[in-house]
Each structure stands twice: as C-alpha cells, then as structure tokens.
C-alpha cells in the first residue's frame, strides 16, 4: 500500500493531533444559538454567526455540546437556568474546547457561559425595542380603551400547567363577594421562541371569537429574565396595541417588566395581582351601585318632602283664597243692594221733575192764561172763522176777552 495513502481513521487521528496541538487552551467565542436539543442531560447545539446587518447570510456555523456534568455545574453556578441561554437567536459568549473526533468530527465543547454578555445584549436589544415602542406610540392605544364597569367574561393567555395561572384562578374564584366569572383559557407557550407565535395566534383567535370578552389577560408566573424574554417581543406589542379589548398583564414577579407590560392597558405585577385588581374593579362597581340606590332614595325622599310642602301651601291658600273671593263678591252684591233703591228713587224723581216742568210749560201756553194777561181772541161770526186778508166791510166779528165777549162790525179796512 502506498505510504502516502491514509485510512480515514488515520486522517482523523492526524487532524485530532493537529487540532490538539494548536488548540491546547480553551477559547472564548461569541456566537448565536441556531438550535439546541437536550438529550439525557447533554445539550447539542448549532452555533452560527450572521453577517452584520444581514440576518439571512450565515458566515460561519459550528456544532457544539455541553456535556451532562458541565450542564449540571453551569446550572448551579449561573443565576439563570442554562437552557435560558440556549434558546434560538440568543447571543452567547462561551468558553469552548475545540475538539475533533475521528468519528463525530469537529465539535466545540462548551465549558462555561458568560451570562453578562447575553443579558447585556438582551438588555441592549430590549432598550432599542423600548425606544421603538415609544416612537410608534404602541404604549398608548390599549390604555385608552375603557374597562367595562363589570369584568365577567375573561379571556386568558396562559397555560393550564403554569403556577401563575393556577394562582390566578384560585384567587379569582375564591372571592368573598361571591362574584362569578366566565373564564376561557387560550393556551400559549410561556417561554422561548414560541411565545410570540402562540400569543399572536391566540389574540387573533380571541378577536374573531363569537364571545365578546370584557378583558384579555396575559398571565405568567415568575421565571428567570431569560424565561420572560419571550414577552419582550415587538410583534406581540404591536398586536396588543391594536387589540380592541383591554389587555391586562401579570407577568413574572414584582420586579419584572417585559415589553408586553409597557403596551398593555394595565400592567400588574403578578397573576394574583391581576385577580385582585379584577375583584376590586367589580367591587367598586357594586359599591357605586349601592351608593346610587342610596342617592335615589335620598332624592325621592326630598322630592316627596318638597311636594308635601307645596301641598301644604296649596291647602293653606285653598282655605284663604275662596273666602276672600266670596267676601269681595258679598261686598259687591251688598253695594248693589244698597245703591239700588237710591238709583230707582233718583230715576223716578228725575222723571217726575221732567213731568212737572212739562206741566208748567203747558199751563203757560193755555187760552185763559193768555186772556188773563190782557190778550183777546177775535174771529168771524157766524162761522167762527179766523180773520184773514179777505175780510170785507160790514162783516160781523166777535172778540173774546178776560171778562166776556162782544160783537163789532167792520167799518173801515186799512192794509
């Protein structure tokens, strides 16, 4: 056999030796997690590096592994669970031993993880997304949606197995006020890459559901910062900001705040706090109802009192006014009664005066009175005709005077 020909194993052994010689020390490497799979305590990973500014172009790719003992050791050492660092898309700074195996090829054996690097990167990304949220005003619309007076039909984005969800349900349904609720769970992934996809899908489901929900809740119990980072999604934020129903969040513990919390209508610290908020909200409505009942009673009482006073006043007037009218009328009638005889007497008196005057006038113009005053009456005999211009000589005339009469003959006529 040609001495220049290697068997595959020989070549593998040679490569392993070359690599061992050149990579005696462990090396810090920064990379992005492309995938991670844990089998019997050992994590198998794909690491990649993408071109800066072009996330589609992969510049380098390597397989990596965290052996079971390292995995356990790291889990104890780090404040965050190791798996939290190994989610797809995470940027990590890892201490690796470059290893070549003739059968399994080149592998980076991960010995350590620098949590500060990953968390720092995340913090930076989060800061930028936060800026974007305020720039696009995604934090406003859902806050402006009013809450219904009573919250009863509730859609929940969470997971049945999640402790936070169980706490919430327990708190909500064991309320001392005896409020009842209709709760529909829309299951979502609570950590990792599926958070974004499932939340957006279920929000759509709720929006198109026949049920008109009073409020939508996003509930997740406590977890590491890496666990909660699924809720730092700008796409979820956009969905919530345009969502037509008020969204309440209770994600993590007291100190945690995700980007979703920023755009939610109301952000509360924990799922239990959300339950308390809902109960309090409903209690406020009940109290305001009771207050309204009291107010109505008071108003009605006042109204009745006022009407009573008015009636009393009317009653008083009723007892006075008709008698005044009657008194006035009596006075008028009395007046007429008194005046009537005078008026009749006057009327008759005036008529008598008129008659007396006429009588005197008639007396004045009578014949005997005229004769008494020295006047005479002359007429022609025998016809008693009055004298006229045709009278002739020798006509006999008779003259009557106060004491008697005498006859004469016309002897001369003068014109």
């Amino acid at each position, binding site marked *: 056999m040609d001495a220049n020909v290697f068997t595959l194993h020989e070549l593998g052994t040679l490569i392993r030796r070359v690599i061992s010689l050149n990579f005696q020390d462990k090396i810090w490497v920064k990379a992005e997690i492309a995938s991670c799979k844990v089998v019997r305590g050992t994590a198998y990973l794909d690491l990649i590096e993408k071109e800066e500014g072009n996330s589609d172009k992969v510049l380098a790719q390597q397989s990596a592994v965290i052996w079971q003992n390292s995995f356990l050791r790291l889990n104890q050492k780090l404040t965050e669970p190791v798996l939290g660092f190994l989610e797809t898309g995470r940027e990590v700074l890892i201490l690796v031993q470059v290893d070549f195996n003739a059968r399994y090829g080149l592998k980076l054996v991960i010995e350590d993880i620098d949590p500060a690097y990953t968390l720092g990167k995340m913090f930076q990304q989060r800061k930028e997304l936060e800026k974007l949220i305020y720039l696009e005003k995604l934090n406003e619309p859902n806050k402006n949606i009013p809450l219904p007076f009573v919250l009863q039909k509730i859609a929940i984005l969470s997971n049945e197995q999640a402790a936070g969800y169980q706490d919430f349900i327990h708190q909500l349904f064991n309320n001392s006020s005896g409020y009842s609720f209709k709760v529909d769970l829309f299951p979502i992934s609570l950590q990792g890459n599926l958070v974004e996809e499932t939340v957006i899908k279920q929000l759509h489901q709720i929006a198109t559901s026949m049920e008109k929900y009073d409020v939508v809740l996003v509930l997740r119990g406590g977890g590491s910062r890496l666990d909660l980072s699924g809720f730092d999604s700008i796409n979820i934020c956009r969905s919530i900001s345009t969502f037509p129903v008020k969204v309440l969040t209770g994600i993590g513990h007291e100190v945690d705040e995700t980007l979703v919390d920023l755009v939610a209508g109301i952000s509360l610290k924990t799922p239990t706090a959300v339950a308390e908020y809902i109960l309090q909200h409903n209690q406020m409505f009940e109290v305001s109802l009771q207050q309204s009942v009291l107010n109505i009673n008071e108003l009605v009482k006042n109204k009745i009192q006022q009407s009573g006073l008015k009636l009393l006043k009317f009653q008083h007037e009723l007892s006075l006014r008709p008698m005044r009218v009657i008194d006035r009328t009596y006075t008028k009638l009395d007046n*007429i009664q008194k005046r009537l005889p005078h008026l009749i007497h006057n*009327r008759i008196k005036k008529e008598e005066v008129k008659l007396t005057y006429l009588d005197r006038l008639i007396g004045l113009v009578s014949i005997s009175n005229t004769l008494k005053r020295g006047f005479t009456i002359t007429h022609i005999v025998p016809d008693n005709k009055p004298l006229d211009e045709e009278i002739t000589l020798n006509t006999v005339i008779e003259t009557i005077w106060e004491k008697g009469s005498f006859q004469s003959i016309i002897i001369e006529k003068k014109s």
Partner: protein
Amino acid sequence: MNTDNISYEKAYEELETIINQLESDTLSIELLAEKVSRAAFLLNLCMQKMRSIESDIQQIIGTK
C-alpha cells in the same frame, strides 16, 4: 230670561247692566218696574248662590 238655571256670572252681568242703565238714565220708565223687579230677583239669586258656594267651600276646607 226668568230662569233659575242662570249662572252666577250671567246673573251678575245682567244685574250690572240694569244698574248701569239706571245710573245713565237709559232705562225706559215703562220698563222700570219690570227691570227693578228683575234686578231684585237677580240680586237675590246671586246672594243665594254665594251662600250656597260659601257653605260648600267651608265644608270642603273644614273636612280637609
């Protein structure tokens, strides 16, 4: 004319007319006795009506 069904207002109005005629000497002497008799009747009617109304009102207010 000489009916008892006449209302107080009508009776009083007629009474006033007779008084006015008496005052202004427009009442015919021929009708004087008749009108004075009518006036006395109307006056009496008004008085009666008033007494009846007064007693009714006192009864109503008294029982309140």
